[in-house]
């Protein structure tokens, strides 16, 4: 791409790279090392650049107090269910958009995609009374159903672009053999679409795992609280701020999603940027 054979070009490149890398990665470094500092070392005006005395106190506290584990468990239940539901809905819809031609298809597609620009906060205003009327306020089910809002439009589009690339000939051939449409989808199309399915599942999971707004509004009771509002209320409330605890809990809360990405990031990025670059 660029010619870096001159010392000046190399210096400019290295400087830019260093500055942006510092901006992107220093906060993560700071998060991790702060979690391993004891309170005496943590609360200093001029901080130490690495933990001079390694302390696991914030982690043992977090697990002993119990609320973090409870938040984790709730987030896991809600996020897995929401991701599964979202993937299931998007699978069939994406396939329908990609491989069937019928009147109204384009209209529904536009409608579904335009939903991405309805502000989540505005939707929440009227989802709240609906969920309340259904008796689902302060239930995990209510939160799971509401999370359809976040991921369904983009998930459907991701699967639509993926299925569009599956050759129609294999579907036609199976049809000629007399296979039912559901069977064709489940036994022929789905097996070759595992990367897309995994991507969409992870996408839905990420939205629900990382959400704060819906979780803090639709869940009231402490025993059902998920990670986002749970951590905010436990570590930075009006009474005290426990920054060490917040950092330790942050590492625990981020681990599942960061690990999932470490394994799946290539598929994922292809899925998310698909269709936007031509």
């Amino acid at each position, binding site marked *: *791409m*660029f010619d870096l054979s001159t010392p000046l070009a190399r210096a400019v490149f290295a400087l830019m790279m260093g500055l*942006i890398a510092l901006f*992107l990665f220093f*906060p*993560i470094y*700071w998060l991790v090392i*702060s979690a391993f500092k004891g309170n005496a070392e943590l*609360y200093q*005006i001029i*901080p130490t650049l690495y933990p001079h005395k390694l302390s696991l106190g914030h982690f043992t506290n977090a697990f002993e107090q119990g609320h973090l584990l409870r938040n984790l468990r709730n987030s896991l239940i809600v996020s897995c269910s929401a991701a599964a539901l979202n993937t299931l*809905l*998007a699978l*069939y*819809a994406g396939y329908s958009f990609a491989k*069937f*031609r019928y009147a*109204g298809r384009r209209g529904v*597609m*536009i*409608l579904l*995609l*335009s*939903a991405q*620009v309805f*502000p*989540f*906060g*505005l*939707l929440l*205003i*009227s989802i709240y009374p*609906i969920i309340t009327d259904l008796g689902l306020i302060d239930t995990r089910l209510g939160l799971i*159903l509401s999370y*359809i*809002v976040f991921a*369904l*439009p983009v998930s459907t589009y991701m699967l*639509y672009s993926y299925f569009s690339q599956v050759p129609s000939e294999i579907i036609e051939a199976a049809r*000629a053999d*007399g296979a039912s*449409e*559901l069977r064709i989808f489940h036994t022929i199309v789905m097996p070759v679409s595992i990367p897309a399915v995994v991507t969409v599942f992870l996408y839905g999971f990420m939205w629900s795992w*990382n959400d704060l*707004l819906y979780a803090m509004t639709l869940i009231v009771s402490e025993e059902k609280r998920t*990670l*986002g509002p749970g*951590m905010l209320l436990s570590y*930075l409330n009006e009474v005290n701020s426990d*920054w060490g605890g*917040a950092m330790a809990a*942050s590492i625990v809360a981020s681990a599942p*999603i*960061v690990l999932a*990405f*470490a394994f799946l*990031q290539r598929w994922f990025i292809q899925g*998310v940027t698909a269709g*936007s*670059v031509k």
Partner: protein
Amino acid sequence: MAFAVQDSGKGPAAALRVSPHAERGGLKARERRVGWLFLAPALIAFVAVILVPFLRALGLAFTRYDLQTPVPEFIGLGNFHAILTSPEILGSFVTTAIYVVLATAGSVLLGLSWALILNQPFRGRAALRAMSLIPWVLPSTVTAFVWGWIFNSRFGVLNALLTSLGVIDYPTAWLSTSGGAMTAIVITKVWFSVPLFMSFFLAGLQSLDKEQLEAARVDGAHNLALLRDHILPHLKPVMLVVIVLGVIGNLQHFDTIFALTGGGPVRATSVLSIEVYRRAFDQWDIGMASAVGLLWVATILPAAWFYLRHLLKGA
């Protein structure tokens, strides 16, 4: 809603049988029927959870619906009149504009630079690309903790750095001054938007014609000329998508702003998402919240139109 989900499993099975001897007209009708059946579960969920609440919220914008008025009462444009005469709410629009412009510009600039850097071959590039995604996937509460701690007025590393470098004489209370709080929420948003923007730009850079670039270089074009005359023009369509997505995302963003400043100090960071939330769930003034929300949607529409047109080009 729960029923809609179950439908996708069993309901359509019987109807989806296809006979290979079907006539042409019958095939078309079948394609339509099967297409709609596959679509049905998602469509029902969409209507129930997204479309109906959206239209309902738009309708509530024209009502009085608050703690004293438990049943929505039509008042026409009353809420909008109140908005136009409320310096607080009008201020929210200005705050939002500042936030969206700064956060989008910062993310595009750094995302593009980072993509150009990571497009250059060097050892460890793949690992660095993968690591760069981390800020994007962290839960919003974690992101707010990370930056809240960095910007902390007493023990924050930023104040320590700036005072020891002599940039400032006394520690700044970042999150409790209006300029500082805006700086903090913008930097936080840019931080976790850069990875996504970088991914879009990297994808765009992959289709760059390397031979053409080589030829230009042989003709004596320098790095900056290459960037200006070849790389940036090539990235123009991606740039448009990224800016539009950035604007839509930033107009809607709530989580890290709420966790870091709650819209404060006073109203310095009270962007529309915070404003609507506060009106609805702190003051229970649903009518007013919906009216502000409707104007909020209106600000998103121009960007949304570009985005949709682009996405549907192939469909």
